[in-house]
C-alpha cells in the first residue's frame, strides 16, 4: 500500500474533524475544502500507474495513466468550487444578519 493513500485518509479525517469540531463557519467551509481536496487526491492516485505519462497521445507511449479519474477530478473540482462559493456567499449573508460567525449562535430554527 502506497504511503500516499495514508495522506488521503489523513486529509479526509482532518476535514471531517474540522467540520464537526469547529464552531466557526469559515473554518467549517475550510473543512469542506480539505475534504474535497482529499477526494481529488484520491482520484489522482488511483489513476496513477508507475512510469506512466500524461494521457496526451501525440505519439505512441508505452504506459499511459488512466484518463478517466482525471476527467472526474476536473468535474469534482468545479462542483466543489461551486459549492464552496455558495457556502461562502451564504456565510457572508449570515454574518451580516447575525453578526457572528459562531455556528451555534444560528439558532432561529429549532424544535
Amino acid at each position, binding site marked *: 500500500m502506497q504511503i500516499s493513500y495514508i495522506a488521503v485518509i489523513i486529509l479526509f479525517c482532518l476535514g*471531517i474533524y474540522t*467540520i*464537526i*469540531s469547529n*464552531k466557526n463557519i469559515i473554518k467549517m467551509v475550510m473543512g469542506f475544502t480539505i475534504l474535497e481536496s482529499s477526494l481529488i487526491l484520491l482520484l489522482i492516485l488511483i489513476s496513477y500507474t508507475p512510469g506512466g505519462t500524461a494521457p496526451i497521445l501525440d505519439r505512441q507511449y508505452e504506459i499511459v495513466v488512466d484518463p478517466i479519474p482525471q476527467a472526474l477530478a476536473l468535474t469534482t473540482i468545479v462542483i466543489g468550487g461551486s459549492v464552496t462559493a455558495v457556502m461562502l456567499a451564504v456565510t457572508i449573508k449570515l454574518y451580516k444578519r447575525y453578526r457572528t460567525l459562531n*455556528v*451555534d449562535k*444560528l*439558532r*432561529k*430554527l*429549532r*424544535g
Partner: protein
Amino acid sequence: MITPGFLYFIGAILLLFPVYEKLKYMLSFLVTVAAIIITLHLIPGYSVQLDFLTFTLVPFKVDNINKLTGLIFAVGGLAAVIYSISMCSLSHLRLIFVFIGSALTAVFSGDLFTLYVAWELMTISSSFLIIMTSDVTKKTGYYYFLMHVAGGLSLLWGIFLQYSATGNFSLNNIEVGIPFFMIAIAIKLAFVGFHTWLPLAYSKAPFYVAVILSIYTTKVGVYVMSRLLSGINSLAYAGLISALFGIAMSLKQKRVLKLLCYSIIIQVGFMIIGISIGTTEGITGAIFHLVNHILYKTVLFMVVGVVIYTTGKDSFENLGIMGRKLPITSIATFVAFMGIAGVPFFNGYMSKSIIKEAIQDPILTLGLNVMSFGTCIIFLKFIYYAFFKNSDRKVDKKPPVSMQLGIGFLTVLMLLVGIHPFFLENLTNMHVDLHYFDKKHLLSGIQPFLWSIPIFILFKKYIVKNYERFLYFDIYLNMAKLFMTTGYHLSNYHDGKLNKYLLWATSTLIILLLLFMF
C-alpha cells in the same frame, strides 16, 4: 343492483349542488324512503363481487340478519333525517348521509376489507359531524376521533393477522387476532373501560347529532360483534359487568342526555349477552333487541331533543314541560319508557324474552333481571321528572312539524312491534319458537317493572338527587400526557446547534460501518 348504502352516498353527492330549501327536503325524503324500499326487497343470499387490487371482495351480501339490521337502520335513517332536517345545514346533512350510508355499507359488507373501509368512513363522517356542528365540541370531536381510529386500527391489525393466517377476508371463522377484534368492537360498543367517548360525545354534540349517532355507532358494533365474535361465552359476563356499571353511572347523572348515554351501555349489555350465548336464538334475540333498542332509544333521544329545542337545556327539571302541551312527545315518551322497561305488549319485552329464554346460566338470568330492574329505576326517574314532578317551565316555541313527524313515525312502529311481535319475525323469516304471550314469559317480563315501582317510591330521595361527580379518572388522558412530554423533551434536543447535529451524523456513520463490517 344499487345498494342502500350506495344510495345514501349518491344522496350526499347530490346534496353538493346548492339546492333550494325545498329541493333539499325532497331529495332527502326520496333517498331515505328509497333506501327503505330497496332494503325491503333484498333477497337473502344475494351478493356482489368486486376485484380490487389482488383481492376479490364481496362488498354486498344479504342474509336474514343483516337484512333486518339494514332495515332498521334505513327506518332510523328516515326518522332521523326527517327529525333533524329543519335544523341542520346542508354540509351537516351531507355528512349525515355519508354516515348513514357507511353504516349501511358496513352492515351489508361481506368481507373484512369492505367492513373496515365502511367502519373508518363512519368514524370520519361522525367525527366531522361532531367537530363541525358547534364550537364547544372541538375537543370532544378530537377525543372521539382518536378513540374511534384507535378502535379502527385495532380492527385493521386483527384483519391483517387474520388475513396473513388464512389468506382470505371471510367474515366467518375468525381464528387469529381475536383480542384485537375485541378491542375494536369494545370501543365501538362503549364497553366499560372503553366507554369514555360516549357520554362526552353525545352530551356535548347538538341533540340532533346525538340522535343520529345513537342510532348507528354502537349498533354497528353490536352487529359486527354478532358476525365476528359470536359464541364466546365468557364475554357474557363482561357484558353483564358493563351493564351494571352503566346502571351505577346513569343513576348519578345530572343531565338527561348523559343518563340516556349510560342507558345505551346497559342496553348494549343485553345484546352482548345475547350474542355471547352463541345459539341462534341468542343472536336472533340480540338482533331483535337491537331493532327495538334503536326504536325506543331514538325516540327518547328525540324527545330530549324536543326538550332542548324548546327550553334550551337538558336538565331534569326541564323535562317537566311535557304533558298536554306536547301531546305527541308525551305519548312517545310513555311508549318508549314501557318499551325499554320490557313491559309486555310493548316492544322491548319481545327481545328481552328471547334472550332470557336462550340463557342457560342462572347467574346470567339473575343478572339480566337486575339489569331490567335497573333500567326501570333509571327511567322511572325520567318519567317522574317528566310527568309527576310539578314544574313551572313554559313552552316558548313549538317544535317544528318535521320533528314531531319523526317521533310519531317511530312511535307507531314501536306499538306495532310491541302488539304484534311476529311482525319482525315474518319480515325476515327468522322464526323463534317462542310463545310471547304465555303466562311464564308474561310474568317474568313484568316482574322487574313491578318491583321497581315500589322500590323507586321507597328510595326516591336517594334516587332523585343531584350527585356530585366524585370520580373522574381517564387513563387515556394520562397516556396523552406521556406522549406530549416525550415529544417535548425530544423537541428540546433539537436546539438548532449545527455542531451537535453533525456529531449525530458522524456517530451514525461509525455505527453503520460497525454494523455492516462486523
